[in-house]
């Protein structure tokens, strides 16, 4: 989940035709329902040698750390070989259902928690309740929101690997020049910091993006303002409620008050931050890797509490088991997941926050750049795992926030429009998947 997350590869029309055709072929050879998961899980695998195909989307700076963990696992397990297949997340979510439906899917994988519901409803992935019972994994070792994020329809489909939230990155040189000693933590100190930066000659200290991660910023602000963007049962979207409108107005005000230039196109705010053209940017903690590798004098801090309630947008990478009928592979895949979960300390190197309390307490987070964010783990908020929510969000909210930030309409009208369309789509999804 790096910058490349957004860069979906383009497909020529021809590829779409071919895609539809292959999809049709796949559909023709599919059929059948979810298989029951393998035998009782003991934490060990003593069957014949197996090779597991492991799909993930760690195409950025996080990739090498994942590969390192996989290599170590392979070294420690003689009869299991794990082969990674890494692709862009956007392609990942498009390919996985097709591959699993065709019986060509992976044996184990990682996905974002908000895709678990979608894939569970499509019977692409298997419930893991028996596995967590056997492993003795409980909510006690995780923060509750992260743990609950792996559940859809009262069944567990994901074992959390990490949690990653939005963070505030700032240029320490600029802060020093402006005489700011502490990272702003609320609305007043944030605006004071922006004014101080402007006084110090940094004319546009906080570029407001119109695209990614703008909708995550809006979600963060909505929760801070006391809003709830989606009904938790997946029945409706509440974008246009008072807190949502306030949030979008605040985002737009950054431009109107001159803290940000207008019309910030995709990625421009981040490039500007790396170039020292702007002083503060909000982005995902996965950017720590990229920023560490640059010469930029920077620091990371939690997102300031603008709205009043302490809240920040977060997501989580979770392990899943795709539907398949090879018992040995299922058992081996469970061993892999259990091992990876225990060894997720190494994953901190990728800029992420390991999901397990015991791993976090082991000291792996001491001195890593994302350490200041870790304390906020209890204020991290997740969208519901309703099937289809990912598409609903990209088809409605992301476009609406872009329109609002660009100033192509009033926040309430834009959000009203997007909200009613989102609700319409969510109702359709509920009808398709039966809740």
């Amino acid at each position, binding site marked *: 989940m790096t910058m490349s997350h957004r860069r979906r590869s383009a497909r020529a029309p021809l590829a*779409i035709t071919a895609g539809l*055709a292959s999809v049709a072929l796949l559909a023709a050879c599919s059929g059948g329902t979810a298989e029951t998961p393998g035998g009782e899980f003991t934490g060990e695998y003593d069957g014949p040698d197996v090779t597991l195909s492991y799909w993930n989307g760690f195409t950025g700076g996080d990739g090498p750390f994942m590969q390192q963990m996989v290599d170590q696992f392979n070294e420690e397990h003689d009869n299991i070989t794990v082969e990674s297949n890494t692709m862009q997340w956007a392609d990942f979510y498009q390919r996985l259902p097709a591959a699993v439906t065709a019986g060509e899917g992976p044996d184990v994988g990682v996905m974002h928690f908000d895709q678990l519901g979608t894939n569970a409803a499509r019977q692409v992935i298997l419930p893991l309740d028996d596995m967590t019972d056997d492993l003795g994994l409980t909510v006690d070792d995780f923060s509750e929101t992260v743990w609950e994020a792996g559940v859809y329809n009262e069944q567990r489909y994901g074992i959390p690997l990490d949690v990653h939230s939005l963070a505030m990155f700032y240029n320490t040189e600029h802060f020093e020049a402006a005489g700011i000693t502490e990272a702003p933590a609320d609305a007043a100190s944030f605006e004071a910091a922006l004014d101080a930066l402007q006084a110090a000659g940094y004319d546009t200290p906080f570029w407001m993006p119109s695209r990614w991660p703008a909708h995550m910023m809006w979600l963060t602000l909505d929760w801070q303002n006391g809003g709830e963007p989606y009904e938790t049962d997946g029945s409706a979207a509440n974008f246009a409620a008072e807190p949502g409108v306030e949030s979008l107005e605040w985002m737009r005000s950054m431009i109107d008050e001159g803290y940000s230039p*207008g*019309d910030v196109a995709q990625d421009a705010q981040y490039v500007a931050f790396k170039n020292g053209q702007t002083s503060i940017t909000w982005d995902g903690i996965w950017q720590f890797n990229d920023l560490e590798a640059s010469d930029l004098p920077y620091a990371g801090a939690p997102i300031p509490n603008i709205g009043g309630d302490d809240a920040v947008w977060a997501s989580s990478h979770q392990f899943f088991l795709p539907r398949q009928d090879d018992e040995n592979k299922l058992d081996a895949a469970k061993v892999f997941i259990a091992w990876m979960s225990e060894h997720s300390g190494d994953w901190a190197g990728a800029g992420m926050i390991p999901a397990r309390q015991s791993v976090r307490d082991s000291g792996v987070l001491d001195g890593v750049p994302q350490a200041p964010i870790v304390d906020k783990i209890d204020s991290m908020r997740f969208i519901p795992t309703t099937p289809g929510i990912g598409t609903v969000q990209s088809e409605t909210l992301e476009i609406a926030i872009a329109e609002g930030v660009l100033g192509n309409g009033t926040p309430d009208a834009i959000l009203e429009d997007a909200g009613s369309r989102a609700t319409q789509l969510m109702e359709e999804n509920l009808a398709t998947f039966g809740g």
Partner: protein
Amino acid sequence: MTGASPVNAGVLSKGRAPARRLRENAKATPWLFLAPYLTLFGGFVVFPAILGLWISLHRWDYTLPLKPFVGLDNYIGLFTPGSTTSSIFWQAMRATGIFTVASVPFLLAVPLAVALIMNAKFPGRNFFRAIYFAPYVLGVAVVAVLWRYLLDNNIGLVNYYLGQLGLPSDTTWLTSVPWVWVALVGVTVWWTLGFNAVIYLAALQDISPELYEAARVDGAGRWSQFVNVTLPGLRPILTFITINTFIASANMFGQSYLLTQGGPGRETRTAIYQIAETGLRNFQMGSAAAMSYILTLFLIGLSILVFWLFRERKGSSR
């Protein structure tokens, strides 16, 4: 064609019995020669096209066991104002229309100008031919990412240099109309003009120099030669280039997907973009297939119109 003569030679030398066998086999021969292509054509064009029609009559999500038959509902939905699909689809068709109308004239005229220059004799001609064709070999992803950074209104080089030249440096190429269309058409012309230029060039080289000579003898100037010799000489190829360019423009997807993400709002979200979103990301294959067929009908109509416009007119020669 003289391709059959070796077969006949074999027939003659080997007597009558094999000849009959060969004659019988001869019925299969054309099919055998066509087989490799027919297999691909059938498997990747005819079969998907028919299956697509079938899919468009269902609520078709390939990951779900039930794919209920819905008759013409998908089509009716697209023509019913207020349904979840119609307004967005027609907005996408409008975007495709705007892009096609805006880009086709440039994609026909600019490559012709380039081809005319490249057809002249001057030192380094091959080098320039390669330069003009070069962008075409790039993938759309490369082209779009490159131009996304160049055209960015806040951090891009294009606005920076415009500013250096004393021109307005705050044009929002990627975030507001009409500039997004200017950017998309401009990038597309830059990217694909080489293809049409090469075809024009080949056609130009086919025009007999004697015709130009005769025109000159008759006292024709440069413009007169262009209108009376070059253009008529290009007519056969012009039909192909025009239809091909129309279809390529109507299928625009990658540029807006990567440069503008369909924005601002859904302004530059083209029909193919919307079909891909609906079918491949939303798994609504039925609705996406219906959209494809409506787009196809438009393109067929357009092709017929172009054929009609470029038809041989009897007695119209000057």
